[in-house]
């Protein structure tokens, strides 16, 4: 439904990875939603495409789970914004989810790098 520019360089986020990215972003310190989106995009060297609608719903979901907390504040350029920060529970979750993700990425890499058993068609 969101009309996004179809940029081949960008990859839609995998289900569930957005939560992890938000938590990781907030380790650096409290940040508002727009900042989180920008940071994720920038740090993935513009590979990740963050649907802003999904981002805010995800933020709300994390807040409901008490992994992050939020309060209204003022941004550096003097605009009212809702700032999110990581809670202790959020930090634990971040460590756990990071571990999970690493294992997944490693397993994927093992299979993809083995080069055998798969006949790359037109690769």
């Amino acid at each position, binding site marked *: *439904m969101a009309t996004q520019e179809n940029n081949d360089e960008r990859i839609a986020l995998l289900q569930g990875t957005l939560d992890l990215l938000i938590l990781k972003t907030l380790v650096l310190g409290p940040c*508002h939603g*727009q900042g989180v989106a920008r940071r994720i995009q920038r740090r993935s060297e513009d590979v990740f495409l963050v649907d802003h609608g999904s981002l805010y*719903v995800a933020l*709300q979901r994390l*807040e409901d789970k008490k992994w992050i907390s939020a309060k209204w504040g003022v941004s550096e*350029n003097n605009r009212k914004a809702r700032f999110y920060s990581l809670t202790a529970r959020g930090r634990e979750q971040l460590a756990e989810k990071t571990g999970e993700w690493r294992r997944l990425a490693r397993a994927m890499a093992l299979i993809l790098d083995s080069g055998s058993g798969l006949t790359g068609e037109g690769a």
Partner: protein
Amino acid sequence: MFRRKRSAEDFRAEIEAHLALEADELKREGLDDDEARWKARREFGNVRAAQERFYMRGRWAGLDKLLRELRFGLRSLRQSPGFAATAILTLALGIGANTAVFSVMNAVLLKSLPVADANRLVYLRTSNPPRGTGTIDSHETFSYPVYDALRQQQRGLSPLMAYVPLSGSKVAVRVGAQPEEAEGDMVSGTFFSGLGVNLPLGRGFSSQDETRHAPLAVISYNYWTRRFARDPGVLGKALYVNGVPTTIVGVAAEGFEGVEVGGSTDFWIPLQSRPELNAWGNPLEDGKNYISDSTWWCLRLIGRLAPGVNRAQALAQLQPVFQTSAYLGLGSPMQGEKPPVVSLDDAKNFPGYDEQFGRPLRMLMAMVGLVLLIALANVAMLLLARNATRQREFSVRQALGAGRGELLRQLLMESLILVTAGGALAWGFAEMATRLLGRWAEIESSLAPDKTVLLFTLSVLVLSALLFGLAPLRVALAGGAALALKTSAATSHADAGKSRTGKIVVALQMALCVVLLVGAGLLIRTLRNLENTSLGMRVDGLVVFGVKPNITSVPEGMTFYRNLMSKLRILPGVESVTVMEERLGSGWSDNSDMRVDGRLPEVPGSGSRTVRSNVAGPDFFTTLGVPVLAGRDFADSDSASSPHVGIINEQFAQRFLPHVNPLGHTIGTDDGRYTMTVVGVVKDHKYRSIDETPIPMAWYMYAQIPMTGAMHVEMRVHGDPLAILPAARKTVQQMDPDLPLIRPMTQRAQFDTTISQQTLFARLAGFFGFLAVVLVATGLYGTLAYRVSMRTAEIGVRMAVGARREQVVWMILKDSLLLTAAGVAIGVPLATLVGRALASSLYGIKPLDAMTYLLAVAGVAAVALAASAVPAGRAATIDPIKALRTE
């Protein structure tokens, strides 16, 4: 609690902030103002969708949706308050009536005895007691020697319990100074422990209490509440029973009021041996009480099967012991006499309830079931009609994107609101009705709705909620989204299939209505017949009460009653006073064979030799207003020393002394020990109950036969009969301060108790019949009005092309008359089935009484006409131009 943690506004503000921040950033990257704002918005995507997603995933979104639907449902019902009120009231009446009758049925027929492990309890029954014995009930009572022998036999029943009332009705008790009456039983020491009845306060009895005939008493929870206001200090108080002091030692569990039909025992005492506390309140016979008199079978027995023993095994243990002990003190059985056989009866439920109330209650349940069917059909029809007119609304909503699921939820919610409101009202209605039912039926055990009843009602409610939600769905969806595009009222409503369903439902409702009206008619006319039955006496102005003086000898008793009568006669307003041993209209009678002229009379054919007898005082028939056909009434001059005199009725004379003048013949007891000369013949009259047919009767003169027990006093007074009671009470208590008036009431009320069940039954049936008529009328009116309203355009066209008003009215009336005819055609055969089922409850009327059927059919037709009159009138006043314009 119900507030979302974060408001939607807050979320919106956050997105606004996001857009502003993004625009700022884009500007810094070199875009101009407008472009930056536009790009920020574009980057964000669909703001609304995000807000919606936020909203939907809020914690309370589900509940919120429900509340929204509830509000919507309420609003839509509020738009048609007439419909809502009718539907709710109809449901309340239908379900309420069912709940009430079911809760009575539950309490009376389905509930177990309030004892531990009732499945292992058995009542003892006997085929018939040996010759030469007297019984209370020839199948249910036993002698003390039999009880004593059977209880030694511990391998079959352990324990065996005996219980026997202290009186046929109530006994005189006293707690403080004022004498009162209460229902009391003597019981064996094992009674409470054997039944497993809890005692929330104090203790029960022990076997030693029984052996010592200890003066102790346990009172029922009900009596404790009623008489002692649940005072825990009641233990240790003295309860005087027939003047004998007993000490209250316990209160029985709530709900336990004995193990007999209609049991509302107020107190129990261990089996006693004193003459004042003989079984059934009887005077001693030849100086023997119930313990020593082996010819008097008066104890009821109930037992618990011993562990590991089944009923057949227990019976095998008991039978030989019973058959030996039955003849203890009676000598050996006569040649060819069949020995009595003991049997065991299920004691899970109150045994007699089923016989007494089972049939009427099941009939009532069927009747209210029909009422419920009519009510449900009514509401369903109302909903159908309402939702059919809302088809356009549904179509528009579907066209605007509402899913079928959402429409279904809406319909279910509306029906849920109706059913919940109706159910709540029904419960209140049922509570009230149950109380009334209990009072009318004189069932004193608790009838209050319990968990089973609640479950029953809830299942009815859930079923109806589903029915009402789903039934209209088809109609609601039938139009589909496309219908919104059509505009013609005629096309949108002319769906033949729906109205056929409606017609069938209405015709069936009428059929049920015919059935209910026939049933109610038969029962009400039965009641009329009973009420108008001549009693054969001048019953108005008569008042009756019992007294049970503490007297030990025959002369003392005679003196007491003579004094009492002469004192009562001089009270102002009293016309005449007499006494009798057995109260008229009590449902009881003393039946036996009698000798005529020295021998038992030969009765031609298979006629019965049974004679009903009673013991009466002077001026007996004069006081009652029963005509003396020949000879004379009893007089004060008939005394113990004068020749014994007796009086008989017409039946007696016709059957045993035909073709002769009965006066001067000798009649007497079957053992030949007492004889008397017939000095009078009286007209047949009602004796035991209103619905009896007369049988031969004989009356003994009270002053001449050796009796010392309780008597009933009959007084004929001027004015209100009950107004004499305070003066009479004072007179009695001047003679003995311990004596209460036992069950004082007018003689008319006493006779009415013998038809109380028919009265109740008829009144209820009448009420439900009336209810059915009202429901059918509203249903028919609703359906017809709806049909007329959807034919407005058609009628307009007809009138525009020349139809006359009468033709239009006839068109509408014909419709409902056809429905009525169909309903009657189905209903009458059904009604004959009901009539046959009711046959045993009818009096003076045949199950196929033509008049009742005619009236029922006429009633239904009248209802149909009345219900169609308004819609027909409306149809006739339709202005063709206006009608066509609605097109």
